[in-house]
């Protein structure tokens, strides 16, 4: 019992369960799953599907935050990756001899690899600025956040680029074994990352950089190399999310794709119990955080509260979570609850 109460995932799980309970109470059909056309349908599946891109970005963000950094350029990276993929695939419907065939500008695999490479380059740029030049992470990534959004708009010409190439839609809309394919992508990235940080020393390295970069360097870690890799991975994860998002909406919007996503991702990481001061991190917590955010959004829609309140609720959740993480706040609450003995002889 003690171990359970101390478990670092306790609060995220409790939050998620509470939210799900609220959903179930207001919407009797919430847990219902239907099997139609070989796919599972239902609110829960929908939440999983929609949370997948955010979970991907949050996974990358977790590692960056674990090294005491932050990456506020992920939204712009999402937009750039989506724009590159949409531009390279483009595509049109060609009817040849009465048979409809889909034609893309470049082969889809090339387009996807190119989009991911550009996203990884964005991350690499951030990593070099942080680790080699020594800028503060928030400023280094602010540069890409401002310029990257402009670059995405430049690529798309300020328009929404529509994709007419059906195979590409599988990423964001397809189903595998009855579940949305995007969920498998997120799960695969999570699984691979989990193995990487628990089965190799990488997880320890990242934690030690976050706890004390100087000490980590003196202990012989390639601190800078690891930091660059972490930022590159964050960019790559944002790129995958960008592909999933653009595939889901079958278009790329340079102006709005991934807008404010960096804030949601940071929120997901914080909700999952990873401290912004670096050090100990939890991948599972960040995935839970992404699920909490998406469930919250769905809850707000399903219980009939105007969606405009979403932001106020989100703000309230952030305030509560950050206060609970603060040692000073917990001490203050203890002071209010446990009154010192009268007379004051200690």
């Amino acid at each position: 019992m003690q171990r359970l109460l101390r478990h670092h995932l306790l609060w995220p799980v409790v939050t998620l369960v509470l939210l799900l309970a609220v959903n179930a109470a207001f919407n009797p059909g919430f847990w219902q799953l239907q099997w139609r056309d070989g796919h599972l349908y239902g609110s829960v599946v929908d939440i999983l599907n929609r949370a997948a891109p955010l979970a991907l970005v949050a996974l990358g963000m977790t590692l960056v935050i674990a090294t005491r950094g932050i990456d506020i350029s992920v939204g712009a990276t999402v937009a750039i990756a989506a724009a590159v993929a949409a531009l390279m695939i483009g595509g049109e419907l060609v009817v040849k001899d009465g048979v409809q065939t889909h034609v893309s500008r470049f082969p889809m695999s090339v387009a996807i690899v190119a989009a991911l490479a550009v996203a990884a380059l964005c991350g690499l740029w951030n990593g070099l600025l942080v680790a080699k030049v020594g800028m503060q992470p928030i400023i280094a990534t602010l540069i890409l956040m401002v310029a990257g959004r402009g670059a995405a708009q430049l690529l798309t010409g300020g328009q929404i680029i529509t994709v007419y190439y059906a195979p590409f839609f599988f990423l964001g809309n397809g189903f595998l074994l009855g579940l949305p394919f995007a969920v498998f992508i997120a799960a695969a990235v999570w699984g691979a990352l989990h193995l990487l940080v628990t089965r190799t020393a990488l997880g320890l390295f990242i934690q030690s950089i976050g706890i004390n970069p100087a000490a980590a360097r003196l202990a012989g870690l390639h601190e800078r190399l690891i930091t660059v890799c972490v930022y590159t991975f964050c960019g790559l994860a944002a790129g995958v999310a960008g592909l999933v998002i653009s595939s889901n909406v079958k278009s790329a919007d340079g102006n709005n794709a991934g807008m404010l996503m960096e804030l949601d991702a940071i929120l997901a990481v914080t909700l999952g119990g990873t401290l912004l001061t670096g050090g100990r991190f939890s991948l599972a917590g960040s995935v839970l955080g992404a699920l909490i955010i998406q469930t919250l959004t769905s809850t707000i829609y399903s219980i009939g509260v105007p969606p405009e309140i979403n932001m106020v609720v989100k703000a309230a959740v952030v305030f509560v979570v950050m206060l609970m993480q603060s040692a000073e706040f917990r001490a203050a609450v203890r002071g209010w609850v446990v009154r010192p003995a009268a007379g004051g002889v200690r």
Partner: protein
Amino acid sequence: MRRVDARFVPLLGTVAVFLLTAGYGSFAYTSFFSPQVFLNLLIDNAFLCIVGVGMTFVILSGGIDLSVGSVIALTTMVSAALVEQHHWSVAQAIPVVLVMGTAFGAFMGWLIQRFRLQPFIVTLAGMFLARGLCYLISIDSISITDAAYTTIAQARLSLWADGPSITVGALLALGMVALGIWLAHATEFGRTVYAIGGSEASALLMGLPVARTTVLVYTFSGFCSALAGVVFTFYMLSGYGLHAVGLELDAIAAVVIGGTLLSGGVGYVAGTLFGVLILGIIQTLIAFDGSLSSWWTRIVIGGLLFVFCLLQRGFESRR
């Protein structure tokens, strides 16, 4: 003597970039070099300038304030709702929104100081909260038709007869810059802000009022945001929850370009004024050119940020 010079180098660099850009514009485009074009820089960026003054103090103290844009939106929204739907007068509405913004900033400052929370997260939550509150008032834009508001908004003060003119908002912006310079360099508050930015632990050991000053810095930033919101209301003559989206980043960019170090403790309010003017002149140049699309503004600003941050790193490592 050389040390004194080194302190001013980032500021001089900013001024030089502004003059070079202005010089380029004057040669490249006819009718660019006119007093009115330069006054328009102030008129169109008055709100950014006011927010930048508050942001300079926050960054000087080693913090950050992401809520400024949404506080502006909330201010426009509340002003519009009070004036249009509740028929308050200008003289009643403005003090109310100013107090509201100041209290909002003070609350965030208190959270940051009292519970040792990170400014980034607290002001991020503040940003969500203020935007959300806008939508609670109304989802749609509320346009302001109040006679007093439109009169003030259209008021133009000519520098001389038939000469270039300036708006109330631009004058307020210049006033705030002057106030900021005075606060930073002639008051105990300003000295404490620099000390906290240099090293909070040392400031505490020196017996400076660190706790009070930290709360005051965010309070001042909240006040500046609300005042910028008032100016923005005059500028747009409407209240809308989507006003000033992303303005916090423009403000941070202006402060950084103005030569203030993000690690805190080094910088000048006057630099922020030139940072704002540089952002404004880039937009003006792109508008004058006509063939460049608006997103080039973002790319150029990003590039400028990069160059200035690199230069800052150079200065830091030499010290």
